Each structure stands twice: as C-alpha cells, then as structure tokens.
C-alpha cells in the first residue's frame, strides 16, 4: 500500500507544494492572512482549470500550444458575436463553446490525419489564432479590445456562473476555485475510473499496443484535444465576465504555464504517465509563487526565474519518485 502511495505521479508535486507553502508562510507575513490564501487560490484556479485537460492530453502523448490563445479566441468570439448582433450574451457563450470545441477538434484531426507531431500542428494553430484574434478584433470593433458587454441581456446571470464570488467565514472566494475543484475531480475520475481513462494511458504509453487491442486511438486523441477546447472556452468565459471586455493580445505564453503545471504535477513529456491531481498541485505551486513573491516584497520580475528553478527541481523529483515506484 505504501508503495502504491509512493508510486502516485502527484507525490512529488504534493511535497513541492507543501514546501513552497511553508516557505512563504515563514518569510512573508501577508501570506498568512486568509484573504491572501483566497487570492492564491484564485490565481491557481485560472491556471488549474486549463492544466487538467492539458495534463490529460499530455498523458495521451500530445501537446496543445494553442491552449493559451484559444482562451482569448473563445472569449473574443462570444463578446463580439453578442455585441455586434445585440444578442443575449448566453447565445454568444454557447456558440463560442462550439467554436472552441471546433478548434480542439481541428487540432486533433490535423494531428491524427497528417501524422505531424502535435507540437508543430498546434504551433501552427497557435500562430493562426494569435494573428486572427488581433486582426479580427481590430476589424470588427476598431480597437484592440472588445466593447464592454456588461449592460447586455444575460450578462448578470452569466457572470454568476463564470465570475462571481461568495463569502466563506468573511473571506471572499472566487467561484472559479469551485469550478477548478470540480474539473480536477472530473479529470481524476475519467483517468482512474472510466475506460476512456485507460485508453488515455494506453494511447500515450504504447500506441501500437493500444491499437492492436482495439482502442480507438484516433477518437481518443481528438477527444482529448476537444477537452482542452472545452476548458479554454470555460476560462475564456471567466475572463469575459470578470472584466466585461477582452484584450485581443492576451493569452500568449499561457500555454507553457499550463504545460509547466502538468509537468510539475508529474506528467511525462513522452506521454503515458501523469495525473490530474498532480496538475492541480502544479497550478497551486504556480499560484503560491506568483503571489508569494509579491507578499514577500520581492521584485515581481523574479517570478519567472523561480518558476524555472521549480520546473527543473520538480522534474528531477518526479523522476526520482517514478524510479522508486518501479523499484517498489
């Protein structure tokens, strides 16, 4: 039993998260306040919601570099569609879901059909979306951001779903934290309790074997890309309803943050190994460091430097945990 516990991919990231939590608890006074914790959780959730499908995709042996800009693209799509056609915002929300899933499908379809590595295919869609985001936004609204949609029909109800807060013991917690938890639970349930989860491990770990025993490899991988699309849409909706307007150049670079969270959480770049809970710890580490540096009064510019150190450290730690698991 202990060996099974040790063998879990998220062990390294759990240890790392605790260490970083204690570290900032000791050196940064403001970090100890519950309101600071709420902020950390919020920052973590914005990464964590995306890290779940990105981790599943990585376990399935693929990458999605378009994940970051897909968040922006779906929020731009929803905002502009609703505003320009004066529709209830829920129409924009739902149509943009179809759009984001379509991007995911396109990524998966291209990867499976052309056999080009997903790194390249999604680098292509990343660049295309990045360009289209800005170009189309400028074309449609004459500026680099969308128009404010806060006075439109359905806005307040959509905001409640995607970007509200609630009070717990006098501390305001953002709703995305709950959504994050839900996504992690669903991701873990899929991985460990459904046959689709088995297929994810199989297509990432030994694709020939998977094919030979009848796993629908193509459908599995396309579904994983669409999962990234789904969560990108969700985060896009959060940003839209949290800020009422969307900057068209946002999201670039976030794809790597998601991948880093997944890798810190124990996912292998080569596929076949990893966990959704680990990705959540990875996101939490990201959020704690991001805020902790501010609370500690350090120059925020150091953030990426620390992130880099943690990535390397986590990778070594995970490798060690994995070796322990093999040795049993």
């Amino acid at each position, binding site marked *: 039993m202990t060996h*099974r516990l040790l*063998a879990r991919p998220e062990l390294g990231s759990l240890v790392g998260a605790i260490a970083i939590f204690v570290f900032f608890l000791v050196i940064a006074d403001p970090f100890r306040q519950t309101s600071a914790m709420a902020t950390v959780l919020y920052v973590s959730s914005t990464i964590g919601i995306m890290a779940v499908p990105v981790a599943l995709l990585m376990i399935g042996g693929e990458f999605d570099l378009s994940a970051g800009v897909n968040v922006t693209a779906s929020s731009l799509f929803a905002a502009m569609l609703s505003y320009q056609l004066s529709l209830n915002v829920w129409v924009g929300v739902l149509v943009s879901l179809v759009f984001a899933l379509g991007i995911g499908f396109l990524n998966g379809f291209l990867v499976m059909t052309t056999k080009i590595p997903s790194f390249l295919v999604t680098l292509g869609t990343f660049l295309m979306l990045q360009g289209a985001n800005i170009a189309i936004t400028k074309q449609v609204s004459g500026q680099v951001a969308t128009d404010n949609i806060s006075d439109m029909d359905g806005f307040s109800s959509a905001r409640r779903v995607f970007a509200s807060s609630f009070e717990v013991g006098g501390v305001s917690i953002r709703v995305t934290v709950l959504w994050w938890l839900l996504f992690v639970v669903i991701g873990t349930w899929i991985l460990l*309790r*459904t*046959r689709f*989860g*088995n*297929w994810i*491990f*199989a297509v990432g*770990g*030994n694709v*020939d*074997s*998977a*094919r*030979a*025993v*009848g*796993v629908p490899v193509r459908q599995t991988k396309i579904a994983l890309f669409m999962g990234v699309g789904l969560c990108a849409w969700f985060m896009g909706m959060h940003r839209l309803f949290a800020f009422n307007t969307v900057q068209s150049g946002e999201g670039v670079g976030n794809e790597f943050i998601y991948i880093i969270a997944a890798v810190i959480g124990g996912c292998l770049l080569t596929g*076949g*190994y990893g966990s959704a809970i680990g990705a959540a710890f990875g996101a939490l580490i990201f959020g704690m460091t991001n805020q902790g540096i501010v609370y500690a009064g350090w120059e925020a510019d150091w953030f990426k430097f620390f992130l880099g150190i943690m990535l390397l450290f986590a990778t070594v730690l995970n490798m060690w945990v994995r070796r322990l*698991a*093999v*040795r*049993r």
Partner: protein
Amino acid sequence: MTDNEVVLRLEDVVKTFPGVRALDGVQLEVRAGEVHCLLGQNGAGKSTLIKVLSGVHRPDEGRIEWLGGEFKPANPQAAMKAGIATIYQELDLVDDLSVAENAFLGHEPRRFGFVRRGYMSRHTRQILTRLGHGEIPPGRMVRSLPAAGKQVVSMARALSHDAKLIIMDEPSAVLAHDEVDNLFRIIRDLTSNGIAVIYISHRLEEIREIGDRVTVLKDGRTTAANLPARTTPTRDLVSRMTGRTIEYVFPEQSTQDRGEELLRVDGLGRAGEFADISLSVHSGEIVGIAGLVGSGRSELLETIFGARRAESGTVTVRGKTLRPGSVGAAVRAGLGMAPEERKSQALLLGEPIYRNVTLATFTGYARGGFTNAGKEIAEANRIADLLELRPRDVRRPVRTLSGGNQQKVVVGRWLLGDTKLLLLDEPTRGVDVGARAELYQVIRDLAARGVGVLLVSSEVPEVLGLADRVLVMREGRMVREAPAGELDEDTVLDLVMAGSLQAEEVTL
C-alpha cells in the same frame, strides 16, 4: 490429441509485399487442444503468417477456415473477437496501467459509464490463478513486473478474450530457464481445456517437449505439415528448413595462403550476452560466424569493435591489446565495422554518398575547420569505382541507393583509411540477390588485398560460401570451429538450433 476437431485450416495462403512474396502457398492445420509448432529460418514467413492470422495483414490469395467458417478479419480486434489471440515477441503492454487494466484494455467491462473495477479485478485474479500466478496483484502497475510477469499478463490478456487459439511468437525468448517450465505448465493447462496453441520457437528441445505437431515453413511455403513433434528426427526437420530455392552465387574461393595474424580474441565475455569466446582472424582471411538472432553474435562483434565494453577477456590487434570499450582505439588499430542496422547506426541517409564515405576519416579532409569537398569527392569516386557503386554519382543522397549499394557505401567507408580488419554484421540483409553476388565479390577482393574479414550472418549458406573458416555460436557460446569446406548447411543448422545430434539420438 490428433483426433480432436480441426479449428483452423489454411489453404494456399499467399501474401505479397512490394518485391517480396512473403507467403507463397502456406498450408496449416491446427486442431483443438494441440500445441502446433511452426518451424522455419529467419525470413521463412513465420511473422507474416502470424500477422495474417491476427488480422494485421489480409492474404492476397488462399483460404482460411476458422471453426468451420471462412475467416476474414477486418482488423486485429475482429480476429480477437473471433477467438484468436496473439502474444507477440515484443511485450505489448502499457507500462503505466495496472495488470487488470492491461488485461482488459480495449474491452473493459462497464456499467453506466463506469469501469467495473471490482469485476475486472476479480476476473483478472481468476485468470492469473488459472495461469498459476495468483500472487500477481491485479492492481499492480505493469511497469514494476519482471519480464516473466509481463508475459503472464500478456497471456492473461489473451485469456480475457476467451481465446480458442493462442499464437505465441517465441515466448521463451525473454524468459529464464525455470520460467520456461512454468510457461509449459500454463500451455498444457490451456490445451487440456481445448484451447489450441500455435507455438513458434527456434529451440528444438522446446518443440520436442511441448509440441504435438510441427509444420515447417521455408521461403513462404509449407515444406512439411503435421509432423509428429516428438518423434520426427532432427535431421528431417532441419533438412525441410534448408535447401534454398534462391541461388547463391559465390566467387571462387581464393587459394592464397593466409597471412599474419591480425586479430586475436581471448576469453571474451559479457554477462547475459556471450561467454568465453576465443577466435583469431588472419590477414587475407574471411572468418564467418553462424548463429541465430540472439545467439550473441552481434554483441560479440560490437564488443570486439569497442562499442560494448568487454567484462572479461582481451582483444589483440597485431600484437597490441586494445583498450576495452573504446571505438577510437579499435579504429586507430585498423578495425572497421559495418553494423547490422546500417540505416540507423551507420548511414546519414540524407547526406550525399561522398560525405558518408569520408565520415570515418573526416579529419583528413578538414583544413582550418572546413572540409575540402573537392578532395572528398575525388576519394569517394575512387572508392565508388572500386566497389562498382551504381549509380556512380557520389553527390546523390544515400537514401536514393538500393540496399546493396547502401551497404557498399558502408563498406567503402573503411577502405579509405588503412583498415586492416573489417567486421561485417549481416552485410546482405535487405540486399537483393543480384547485388548480393557483387557484394560477395567486393568482400573477396578485399580479402585478396590482405584485409581480414570477420563476418556475421543468419544465412548459413552465405557463411559457408563466403568464409574460409566458420565459427558456430549458440546461446552466447562458440560451439564449433571448422574450415568452411568441412561443414554443410544441415550440420551448421543442427548446431545453431538447440541440442547436438548425438544428444538427440540418445533420448529418442
């Protein structure tokens, strides 16, 4: 056993690939509850036959009958559903799934979208117990199992499908000796339940022990069917596998005397690969090593060349002992090697021929950090003439050459420097018949110029026809050394397959 009903029948099955007739009229009959052994040399068509039966390839001609009906699986899943499961030589499991998840991968039992883990785990435990390995926990990650355990899981996967025929492709290759006994116990248990097994192995003694009937393949054809596995004399089995239809054309054996001793290997060994190998190669002499894949011959060549570090013994070239594990030392001493996997190990496929030829002696063409392409091309042209390279244009990428000409480039590389001794690992693999003859001539010419050649080949006629002296290896040991004239193909095959004739006759 032989009165049981016939479950599988193949009639005149043909499968062609571009340029190769891999199966050229295969007949096979398998009865319920028997262990039917497939015997044949490398390239006889065993692998293709397995793939046809497991639904990977579809036959071009002929008829397959399975349980009384025609068998035309559209894909591997269909074959598996029909009750034919295959355990491939390479273990085909997913390392980071549990034992139970691997066993049921692709046909997981479900209820309301949930995998029925309890059921799956119980069922897996039942199967494992039936296989005599109830101690393997169904929840254990496959990664942490030893090779033998993984094979049990492969077998559990086959049984989870309710297979009526299990094809085992050299299942004993990854197992230690006592694990083989357990494998046989499992096989006997399967057959007593009416499951048929097609068993493929190079080891005659295993076939004697576990097999009921034997079918022999040669060059894609059935040359003997349904021989009794225990009583058919080895000589009969072996002669059905040999006697090639492909003509080998060997140049005349040279008559010149062998010169000074170039290479001396003394007591060379590496744990688990080969042990206590001693041999010598003289100037102008071709020494051939015969042995099956896995007999340690490629590892031996690589160790002599320094690509693997010898654990015991020495390699001496012209009186000087080489530093173990140093390719540089070997090359400086005048050794050159053409490895078996020439595409991955030896050639830069996208680069022009001349670049590939000059690769080993690069530094000679560099001046101030730049290579002198003119000189490289001139030298490469000289080699191309020597080897009759076709097409002759040395600026062409190596990729565009035929297999035989690619091999000439690998050999030619070593002719540039002052290589005294060439190590050739399967020099004619993937080379067509016409080009083979040329390659043989090239190797002979080299020997005539005083180069010593140490050659490894799975094709026994090639070793016998080309070499002056033949060494036979089996399971990491040298079992025979003789002048090529004193051996024939049957004798060598007897030696490389397990068990000597004499020992065999005592038990019969």
